[in-house]
């Protein structure tokens, strides 16, 4: 991913959030054994409508700010199925994941925009609220580079892990959030991901 660094660095000037966070996170990465991962976040050209309720708390905002990059990565993982030899069932499931993840990004972006909040959060806030899980660039590259034999299992297990992380975030938002629409979205995320995990476990014969 090194080739992207100059571009991303340039864009830091445009987006005040995330940039300082990136440099301060590098130290953590070294300590944790993870690389200083960077995830590019694609923001919708056209965010959804603002939320009806203007009452919200930090947990609501945090959930939406985590959902956007997390779903962006989820889409990237799910799209790997498009060009690889996987079963029709997995192709169908990953296509559905891409669709619903993108819908959620549009919704979250619209609500954040309506509240005049940044689309992503500084890393210090993540620390307070349980942090931002996800694959590092290296881990994602290993899934991408996996040989055909066993690729489907690797992809499905990676998606199960990614979904399971989202379930944790959604449960925290359901418990700590205050905005009824965000809490509704969190419940939807938890329920949808949990159902899809069950389907994926079945694909794996578990």
């Amino acid at each position: 991913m090194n080739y992207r660094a100059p571009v991303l660095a340039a864009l830091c000037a445009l987006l005040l959030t995330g940039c300082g966070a990136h440099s301060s996170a590098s130290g953590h990465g070294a300590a944790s054994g993870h690389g200083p991962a960077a995830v590019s976040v694609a923001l919708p050209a056209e965010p959804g409508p603002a939320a009806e309720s203007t009452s919200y708390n930090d947990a609501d905002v945090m959930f939406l700010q985590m959902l956007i990059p997390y779903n962006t990565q989820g889409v990237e993982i799910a799209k790997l199925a498009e060009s690889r030899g996987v079963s029709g069932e997995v192709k169908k499931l990953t296509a559905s994941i891409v669709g619903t993840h993108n819908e959620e990004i549009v919704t979250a972006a619209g609500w954040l925009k309506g509240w005049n909040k940044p689309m992503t959060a500084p890393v210090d806030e993540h620390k307070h609220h349980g942090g931002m899980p996800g694959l590092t660039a290296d881990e994602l590259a290993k899934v991408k580079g996996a040989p055909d034999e066993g690729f489907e299992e690797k992809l499905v297990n990676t998606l199960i892990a990614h979904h399971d992380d989202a379930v944790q975030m959604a449960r925290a938002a359901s418990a700590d959030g205050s905005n009824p629409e965000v809490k509704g979205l969190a419940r939807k995320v938890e329920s949808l991901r949990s159902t899809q995990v069950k389907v994926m476990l079945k694909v794996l014969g578990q």
Partner: protein
Amino acid sequence: MQARHKVAAVATSVISTASLLAILPTSPAMAHGSMSNPPSRAYVCKAEGPETPKSDACKAAVAVAGTQAFYDWHEVSRLDAGGRHRQIIPNGRLCGAGRDKYRGLDLPRADWPAKRISPGNLTVTYHATAPHSNSNFEFYITREGWNPSGPLSWSDLVPIRTFTGQNPTTFTNWTINIPQRTGRHILFSIWQRVVGSEEAFYTCSDVTFG
């Protein structure tokens, strides 16, 4: 639901028409910790290498549930715990915090790499990649007679000691008093954050008595 229609209409073009990019750190900020001595199952398989597991148990865990659990060895946690461990984690799922991502850690097998220990004082070490102050650490061991080839249930755990009001560092040591046991057992820990988060971390360290 006017909103839904709008969402559906633009959803397909979300990524391709992206107008901005942001960079975000991922796992490093989430990193928390696990038992390093005696090492937890997650710590053992992480040390062997998620892509190159060496022991049969880690090979089986990766074969069943993939590698990501071991890249994220320090996140065997529940954000919503708040002390309700026994309500939110079903029997047989204790080592993986009841999470599908970590189900490989729950494989009931008697060949998980185990550290030889003896009854009496034992110094244990927790490796916290992101230590959180105001935490409680609880330590348990399986009851004499527990079947290491079977699942781990809450009723199998005998409390050893709880340390409250802890402010862990990257490597934190405690001395606990291990009771008489024979054969293979599990040393189980719970790290419950107390202030500012409901989050709790769970570890299973396999041990064997001479």
